């Protein structure tokens, strides 16, 4: 059995003259929870569509569980459980009817199906609502139902598009718990998300793509470390001047220094020595009111890699 769950090799996807994905190479190992991050329009959906066989690459190769997606998409779809962002549930059908319809599409054996549906509805905490139409469900209930529907045919690989989108905090936590349970059972899970906290909690590794290119690929902790060891939030009175910010930025071991709202945020590498130099520079030019030291967040990593401008 191959150890690679998904492999994209030099994949390019063009729509006319527009290049949505540019020579992307990524490998997802079996049993890991892999996150695909990127701003709107970065190419996440296009990548996922190619992995799930909804579209074909213009160039390059996509293999899922060792099978070429172009050569045998139906075989791959049989092994792939998908939770689309829109849930794609039939609102006029009941929760149970939605699962039965999915079972028919995936040719799940009828023997034992009733028990399987019951156990999945229990997993989604929807057993009491099995005969209710999906149109009467809350966003969180629909999300949970979409998740167990994806599990119905016992897929080797689960793809979850924006797990926490449009659901309340409790439902999001419940979904995260389900995904982490799947991880413990050895399932391979691919998620796309814009919630960095979600990626941090769930993912073993993250790929950040922007404008169709891979800009970073590592574990959440390594990605944070690559941004710097420590972030110093320093509040001064009066506010730091441009000269002070430039002076701090020029210090050895300082990765970045940004002034905002009467504070200066400094990212450093090299531990206490560098921090000491920064504090000395600040105190020499203004009055230091408060200093906080913390690890860099994934948000900061993400913004530093993809920029701050708004995307459509």
């Amino acid at each position: 059995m191959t150890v690679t769950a998904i492999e994209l090799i030099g994949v390019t996807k063009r729509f006319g003259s527009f290049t949505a994905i540019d020579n992307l190479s990524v490998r997802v190992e079996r049993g890991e929870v892999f996150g695909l991050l990127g701003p709107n329009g970065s190419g996440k959906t296009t990548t996922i569509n190619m992995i799930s066989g909804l579209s074909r690459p213009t160039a390059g190769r996509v293999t899922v569980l060792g099978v070429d997606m172009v050569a045998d998409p139906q075989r791959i779809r049989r092994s792939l459980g998908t939770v689309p962002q829109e849930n794609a549930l039939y609102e006029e059908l009941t929760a149970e009817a939605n699962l039965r319809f999915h079972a028919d599409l995936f040719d799940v054996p009828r023997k034992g199906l009733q028990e399987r549906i019951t156990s999945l509805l229990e997993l989604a905490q929807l057993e009491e609502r099995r005969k209710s139409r999906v149109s009467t469900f809350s966003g969180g209930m629909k999300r949970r139902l979409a998740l167990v529907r994806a599990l119905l045919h016992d897929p080797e690989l689960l793809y979850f598009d924006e797990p926490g989108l449009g659901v309340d905090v409790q439902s999001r936590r419940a979904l995260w718990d389900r995904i982490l349970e799947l991880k413990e059972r050895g399932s391979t899970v691919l998620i796309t998300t814009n919630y960095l906290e979600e990626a941090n909690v769930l993912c073993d590794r993250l790929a950040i793509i922007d404008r169709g290119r891979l800009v970073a690929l590592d574990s959440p902790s390594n990605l944070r470390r690559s941004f710097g060891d420590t972030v110093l939030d320093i509040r001064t009175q009066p506010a730091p001047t441009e000269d002070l910010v430039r002076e701090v930025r020029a210090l050895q071991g300082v990765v970045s220094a940004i002034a905002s709202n009467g504070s200066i945020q400094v990212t450093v590498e090299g531990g206490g020595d560098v921090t000491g130099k920064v504090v000395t520079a600040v105190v020499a030019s203004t009055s230091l009111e408060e200093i906080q030291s913390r690890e860099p967040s994934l948000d900061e990593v993400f913004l530093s890699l993809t920029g701050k401008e708004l995307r459509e």
Partner: protein
Amino acid sequence: MGSLRAVLAIAAKDIVTWARTPSAIAVSLLPPIAFLLIIFIVAGATGRNPVAVVVEGNGPQAQRLVSILNDSDAFRVQAAAPDEAAHLLDTLQVAAVITIPASFDDDYRMHRPDPVRIRINNLNLDFTNDLRRSLPAAITRFYAGQPDNPVMVGVAESDLRPHDVDLVQFELVPVLVLLLTLMGIVNGGLATAREFEDLTIKALLLAPVGRGVLIAGKILGCWVMTMLVAMVVLILAAVSGFLQPAGWYWLPALAVIGLIALAAAGVGAALGGTFRRFAPVSAVGINVAIYLFFLSGGISVAAFLPDWIQALAHFTPTFYGVDALEAAIFYQSTENLGRDVAVLVLTAAGGLALGIVSLRRRLDAF
């Protein structure tokens, strides 16, 4: 086996969804129901004109003429005194007042000129002419029954068809065809458009089944749904006596219904794949079905319409469907059945091809 299971599941899902979507039911059933109501109202209004009859003489001949007017298919007779009759005419409760004078019997015996008077509310030429034709016809009938009948010229009628067909019955066939085309086109379209609008199409595309299975399921669902509704209507019409194909003529009737439904389902799938939205599919589908209804003789016998409409009708597949159903249901005839069925088979094949090609292109481009 898996493919068949998926086809049946998609079809069943579409039927259940339709049955649980009041707007889809309304869109497909209300137009035929509205036309049916109009037909009942028009048939009631134009079949027999309401008239008041003032009988001033009580002789046997006067009474015989009243009886003939009563039995006539042209009038709904209400006996009235002169003042009352004038009031009924003024208040539009009757279309005319027929007065049989007190001297009627004497004048008849003496062979003096016919003294029957009629005062008509000539507010439109259609029923005015009906009245102008009907009273002389009743008087001719009155004379025809007399032993000393002075009118020697008579009418010898021979009918092309074995029996008369009531106007409502006759109009039910095009309404049934309207129902079939509406159900097929609009519901086939909506069932497909809804998948794109709600993005449930993703659930289908991510299943391990081929595009052909998805398309077959969509078209089968629409066809079965259309046939189910058509069967309910046909059974109700048969039980109530309005539409009763005799003996084996049920078979061509059902075959024609099935072919129209199949063509409409294919066109509906194509429409849904093209527009992918509920509103434009409803609007276009209803308009297409209603134009087909008019062109296939929905409001009148197509053969009696202006030449240019007749020419258009001959290029309208539902025209052949109506013709075949009328022959099978009303006249127990196979006249033109071969031609009609051939046209409908070609239309069904064309509709299916259109649906398959259009939907496949849309699914591939998703």
